[in-house]
């Protein structure tokens, strides 16, 4: 892993490469000097060999000469002497060649000089011998002596020449040994050079290959991204643009053109060309904001309209910001987003909203009518009833009293209905201020407020510990008032009502809104009674507006109480459930979210 990373690091690679090149250069220079040395050795050897050859030639010429001379002395045939001057000339040329060969060897030059003298003296001896042999009366003794001297001298000269040749041979041998050595070194150097070069070549090739592959992959990815980006632009309905501030060139994406109802890249991107599509009312403000931003480099966020060639209007949100490109040039880039649909929807929503507000206002005035104007006359009816009851009842007939009582009951029922209606409408509209409320205290107050009803029914109320919850407290009050009043109202005839209010752990399989809910997210508060109850099949129905299960005169309900309860719990994003059994009682469970 580490190595691979190391390998991929081009900096490291560069350093390695330069070191390798330096090594190659060094080896190459060593190789070069070795080759030079080799070359000079070869020259030297050739030189020495040639010198040897020339020297031997000289010797052989002298031998031939001597043989010819002897032959003449024996035969007296003049023809043996014919070539004697030519022989002397040959030796001269040989010596000249040797001189050239040994020119840069002072010791050898001296040797050659000595050889020259020896040769000269030998030829003197030849001449003297020839003179003796040609004389008419040859002194045999003298000739014999001269021949002997010549012979001896030749032997001496031969020895000398062979000594020189040997010396030259030794030199060649030494050179040859050196040459062998150098040759081996050179071969190793050359081998190393080739191997190293090959290695560098391979490494470079591999590195290049890897780099190219990477580049190719990056390029592919970029192309893919570009493609997806273009697609995304098309699907999401936005186009992007770019302005190079340095070169003052504009570029627009393909979808930018499409948003204008144009073919991609169908005109040259420029401020002037794009202005043609701006709504006349927007041109000044957009151009001004844009040009200002080019000075201040502050991001822009503009909303304006394009007029398409076919006359359509398009609402566009254009957001731009500044950045520097790879070359360090300041560039403004941005996105144009087609808001036309949203704009239409917003307008629609606004209109709906206006309508809703007016409906709400009507509802509120209706609510006022119910809560005030209707209650006024009713309150007076009740007032007069109470006055008659306290002072005039004695003077009315039995039947009259009965009717009168019915009037009172009806009036009271109407009042309850009006109050419930007001309460119900208050749960729809009205201030929804959520505040932390201690439900134990809240229910405690309610129990106090209801104390006269509770005492009348001889009811036993058991209040457990309830949590503190963020709620709309007046609505919560209403909720518990309704539930407790219900329990009091729908109690069994001969059994004193027992109502308990407590918080409870949530069952494991409690479901709300298709989700299993737990104690972590919800409070569960239970209001349980031992009243008349109802069949479980009505458990949903009881919460519906104006749905009453008991219609007898004994139970004076309005059909609003539990609907109000449901509404209130809905307002708190909670839910309410009931489990009931006739003649056993009802258990209402209220679930309130812990996070409001």
């Amino acid at each position, binding site marked *: 892993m580490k190595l691979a990373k190391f390998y991929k690091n081009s900096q490291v690679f560069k350093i390695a490469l330069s070191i390798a090149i330096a090594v190659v250069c060094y080896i190459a220079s060593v190789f070069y000097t070795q080759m030079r040395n080799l070359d000079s050795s070869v020259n030297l050897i050739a030189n020495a060999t040639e010198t040897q050859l020339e020297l031997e030639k000289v010797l052989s010429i002298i031998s031939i000469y001597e043989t010819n001379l002897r032959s003449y002395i024996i035969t007296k045939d003049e023809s043996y002497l014919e070539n004697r001057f030519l022989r002397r000339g040959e030796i001269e040329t040989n010596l000249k060649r040797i001189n050239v060969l040994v020119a840069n060897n002072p010791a050898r030059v001296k040797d050659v000089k000595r050889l020259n003298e020896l040769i000269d003296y030998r030829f003197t001896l030849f001449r003297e011998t020839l003179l003796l042999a040609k004389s008419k009366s040859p002194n045999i003794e003298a000739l014999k002596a001269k021949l002997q001297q010549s012979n001896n001298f030749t032997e001496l000269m031969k020895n000398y020449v062979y000594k020189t040749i040997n010396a030259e041979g030794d030199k060649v041998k030494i050179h040859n040994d050196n040459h062998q050595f150098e040759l081996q070194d050179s071969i190793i150097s050359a081998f190393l050079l080739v191997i190293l070069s090959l290695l560098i070549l391979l490494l470079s090739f591999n590195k290049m290959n890897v780099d190219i592959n990477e580049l190719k992959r990056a390029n592919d990815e970029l192309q893919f991204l570009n493609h997806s980006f273009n697609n995304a632009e098309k699907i999401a309905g936005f186009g992007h643009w770019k302005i190079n501030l340095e070169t003052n060139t504009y570029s627009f994406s393909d979808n930018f053109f499409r948003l204008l109802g144009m073919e991609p890249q169908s005109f040259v991107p420029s401020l002037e060309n794009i202005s043609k599509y701006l709504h006349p009312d927007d041109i000044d403000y957009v151009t001004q904001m844009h040009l200002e931003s080019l000075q201040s480099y502050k991001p822009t966020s503009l909303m304006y309209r394009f007029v398409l060639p076919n006359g359509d209007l398009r609402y566009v949100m254009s957001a731009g910001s500044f950045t520097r490109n790879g070359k360090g040039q300041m560039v403004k880039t941005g996105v144009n987003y087609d808001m036309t649909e949203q704009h239409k929807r917003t307008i629609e929503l606004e209109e709906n909203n206006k309508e809703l507000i007016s409906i709400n206002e009507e509802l509120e005035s209706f609510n006022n009518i119910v*809560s*005030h104007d209707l*209650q*006024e006359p*009713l*309150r*007076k009816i*009740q*007032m007069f009833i*109470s*006055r008659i009851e*306290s002072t005039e009842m004695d003077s009315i007939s039995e039947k009259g009293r009965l009717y009168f009582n019915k009037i009172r009951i009806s009036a009271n029922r109407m*009042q309850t209905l009006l109050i419930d209606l007001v309460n119900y409408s208050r749960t729809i509209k009205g*201030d929804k201020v959520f505040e932390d409320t201690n439900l134990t205290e809240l229910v405690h107050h309610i129990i106090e407020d209801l104390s006269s009803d509770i005492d009348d029914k001889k009811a036993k109320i058991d209040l457990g510990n309830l949590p503190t919850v963020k709620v709309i407290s*007046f609505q919560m009050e209403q909720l518990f008032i309704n539930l407790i009043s219900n329990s009091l109202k729908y109690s069994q005839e001969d059994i004193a009502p027992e109502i308990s209010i407590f918080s409870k752990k949530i069952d494991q399989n409690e479901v709300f809104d298709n989700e299993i809910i737990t104690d972590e997210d919800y409070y569960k508060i239970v209001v349980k009674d031992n009243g008349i109850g109802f069949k479980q099949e009505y458990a949903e129905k009881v919460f519906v507006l104006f749905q009453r299960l008991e219609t007898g005169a004994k139970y004076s309900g309005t059909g609003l109480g539990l609907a109000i309860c449901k509404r209130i719990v809905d307002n708190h994003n909670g839910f309410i459930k009931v489990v009931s059994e006739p003649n056993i009682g009802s258990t209402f469970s209220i679930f309130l979210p812990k996070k409001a």
Partner: protein
Amino acid sequence: MISHKDSMRILIADDDEDDRTFFSDAMMELKMNNKLTLFNDGKELMDYLANPDVILPHLLFLDLNMPRKSGFECLKEIRADLRFKDVSIAIYSTSSSEKDIEETFIEGANIYINKPNDFTELKKVVKEVLNINWQFHSSGLNKETFFFSI
């Protein structure tokens, strides 16, 4: 000290004739030796109070919904006049909305009565209001924090 034998001067402004009758009947039946003056609306009441020589009442009942001048307007005007700083103001209204209760208290009312729908209840309420008001007058309690809602 004030003895309860001293009569308490009480004013009431209500445009509803029946309500005025109920109120004065209740007061009478309580036999509490108070001096009650009735006004048909807020304007009439304010005209009466505008007289600088007026003998200040101890307690003033105001209906909220009145033509010409609402109880709320009367309340504001009276509380803006330092002459009436010792006068207790009771709002006497059919509205039982918390909003109305709080707003009138904030504007300077001391008592808020939700008009009962039973005459016996009315007598009880009036009696209680007179009592608590008397306590505040006679026991040196802080008027600034005198609120009573029934």
